[in-house]
């Protein structure tokens, strides 16, 4: 198969870090904080590389949008087996307001430019938990989508996707080209080995600006404030159901 896969990878604050809200409550502290690739994006890269190893796709291209630092994330994808990278430069204010709508416009434009046959993304990012980019990208391209994938197989020129849904598992067959978003149980990402990281140094990362792709990254959303979750209050024990109902009525809950 001569298919080309586009994989989106997002640089997020590392899952193990304790998040702190900035004193001015406009966002969270990111300076000097450990960042790494979004775990669901790792799973997406792993799936793409697996497809390449099975010789079902020819080339895996890793894409990330953001400032200079996202190159680290792209390099990690290259170390895992992606063939080349594309860094879409977005920085400063634009980066702070960059969201699923803008990213999906960028990915759609890139998919057309690179003539991609398949886009694999993580189902959501662990910083904003939007769960929108995959779906929006498919809509912009008018491509079918297989979201929350826990299994992906290419059969003839169709894609069989097993999806994790509330009621259990749903299996769908969609035409290519398509957008797939990776869920937790799709695979276990490999460790980047040191020799692979060295090889990755030689792989190319192209630089592109959103304007080059004809994409306007201005946001329609304005963040008013960011707060920590409220401190958990102590609970109250009651003796009977009667008391419970009484207390709830008092608190105006019922």
């Amino acid at each position: 198969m001569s298919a080309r896969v586009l994989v989106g990878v997002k640089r997020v604050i590392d899952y193990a870090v304790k998040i702190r809200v900035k004193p001015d409550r406009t966002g969270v502290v990111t300076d000097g904080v450990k960042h790494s690739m979004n775990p669901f994006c790792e799973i997406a890269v792993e799936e793409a590389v697996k497809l390449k190893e099975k010789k079902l796709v020819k080339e895996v291209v890793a894409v990330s949008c953001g400032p200079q630092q996202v190159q680290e994330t792209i390099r990690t994808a290259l170390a895992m087996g992606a063939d080349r990278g594309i860094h879409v430069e977005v920085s400063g204010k634009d980066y702070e307001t960059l969201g699923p709508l803008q990213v999906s416009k960028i990915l759609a434009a890139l998919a057309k430019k690179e003539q991609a046959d398949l886009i694999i993304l993580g189902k959501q990012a662990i910083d904003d938990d939007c769960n929108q980019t995959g779906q929006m990208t498919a809509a912009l391209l008018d491509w079918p989508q297989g979201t929350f994938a826990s299994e992906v197989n290419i059969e003839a020129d169709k894609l069989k996707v097993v999806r994790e849904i509330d009621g259990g598992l749903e299996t769908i067959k969609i035409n290519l080209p398509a957008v797939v978003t990776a869920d937790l149980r799709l695979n276990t990402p490999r460790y980047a080995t040191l020799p692979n990281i060295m090889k990755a140094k030689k792989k190319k990362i192209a630089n592109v600006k959103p304007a080059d792709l004809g994409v306007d990254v201005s946001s329609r959303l304005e963040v008013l404030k960011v707060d920590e979750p409220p401190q958990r209050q102590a609970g109250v024990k009651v003796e009977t159901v009667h008391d419970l109902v009484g207390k709830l009525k008092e608190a105006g809950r019922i």
Partner: protein
Amino acid sequence: MLLRKVTQSPAICSTVFRLQPAITGAQRQTGAVVAVQNGRFYASQAAEAVLDKNVVGSDATMTAEKLDKMAIVESKSFAVNMFKGQISTSQVFPFPSVLNEEQSQFLKELVGPCSKFFEEVNDPMKNDALEKVEELTMEGLKEMGAFGLQVPADLGGVGLTNTQYARLVEIVGMHDLGVGITLGAHQSIGFKGILLFGNPQQKEKYLPKLATGEHIAAFCLTEPASGSDAASIKTNAVRSPCGQYYTLNGSKIWISNGGIAEIFTVFAKTPMKDEKTGEMKDKITAFIVERSFGGVTHGPPEKKMGIKASNTAEVYFENVRVPAECVLGEVGGGFKVAMNILNNGRFGMAAALSGTMKGVISKAVDHAANRTQFGNKIHNYGAIQEKMARMAMLQYVTESMAYMVSGNMDSGATEFQIEAAISKIFASEAAWLVTDECIQIMGGMGFMKDAGVERVLRDLRIFRIFEGTNDILRLFVALNGFQNAGNQLKSLQKALKNPFGNAGMLASEITKRAKRKAGLGTGLTLQGTVHPELNHSGELTVKAIEQFGAVIEELLLKHGKRIIDEQFVLKRVADCAIDLYAMVVVLSRASRSLSQAHPSAQHEKMLCETWVTEAHERVMQDIKFLRSGTSKQIFKNLRAISAAVVENGGVVSPHPLGF
């Protein structure tokens, strides 16, 4: 350990004793000498020496220039100069930053996967219980490239510099020292000889498989009768008459990776003809020995206190045929090969242990911040606070030393053996203390296997013993320092033979000593080198170095060559040297943080100032003790007590109960 003999300065000593008591008119003519007429011991003695008519004119041909050249085979090493009471800052200030943008970037990319592997795949408790590194982990480490970190990339390795290697080894040290030793015995010493001394053919033949971990390497020096006294090994390699091979016979003990290695760096005595005398002498030669040569067997894995996952075994060589191409370095040059290998790998230990300490400190903090006793979290109590602070300081010093030494090595420094030895001594003892205190903070929990700290303590114990016991390394540091200081005195002695041609130099040397003796500064200063906020600490350090240089000279003049045997003195001298190097290293690091306005700069300043203040006290105390008459008596007593106990086969004093 081959200890080169310390030179004595007979000329100074002898001229000192051939005193001309009266101060003649000639003295007034020798310019600056007059300035120091306070009758201080050295000043007057040296001044008199200058006048000794027997000495003057004997080497009149020795010009001032020639002498300057001789005196200046100056070493850049800070430690070497500190023994002379001098401060050479080139290797210590500013704190080395040796990674370029690309190397830094690359290293950052390696840290993540490496840490992840050790957090998620490697199971140190399992490894300790099995007394073996788990198969899956070994495979993972090989795939990861962890077995060839410093092998050049074109031979299949990762090609890391010393500093980059140190950073990764820190991660290993933080998680599992047993694995650390398996990796270290393989690459830090096992095949380091091939990297340092191998010819191109040897490198091409052996390094690729060693880099992937397909072959494991081991370093074979120690024998049942030869530990610290490495020069006394008995394993021998006899050259065949045709010259094509050597026949190796002998046995080595406590060889890390001995049971699993394929490639051994073996040190054996080879009979050689001394070119000058024609007689046969036994000199050590290093060999690359492959298990496949036949005749190489090993014993069962030793049962140890710690680093249980690391394989330690006896290795036997019975009539092993080693091709002549497998000689590593020069025939007869094996001792140098061994010492260089060990010297080259020492920084790795300090780096690994600084990682271990970091890990252990987080556990202690976690406990202290959450444990409530007497109504408060225990970190609010002074007793705990002192422990935590000391742990933090020891870790800071160790880390600074590790990266100072690796930075120096990467910058091409050739003289770092004293500093490397100091870093090994310091790191191993600091790590032990820190881990011990961590267990103390954790109380009963610390003693329990599940907490994971007791294993670290057991693993750490060997670090004070292997790769040169700390006791031997202390002697090495002291004697190496004395030798250099002795050479300095030697050049002074030569200067004394032509005092008029060297009046300037002599005068300044005399002045220096007199000032030092009087407790005045000799003009040395670190102002302008350290960050202004650390000036006071800088001055304390300078004072300590000046007095140290003075006491070194005094000891040399007092004992001469016999200083080699004065181990009670040498130990204390080494302790001072270690403290002084530690002071300078933290001054350098804290200065850099202040200059770069790191968020942690003020905290580092506190660590630095506290350390320097206490170290200064220790050094001054030691120097005072060494100068005092009490020290002589104490040493005498210690010697006598030891002799009595040995003679008695144990404790001498009878039981207080009488039976």
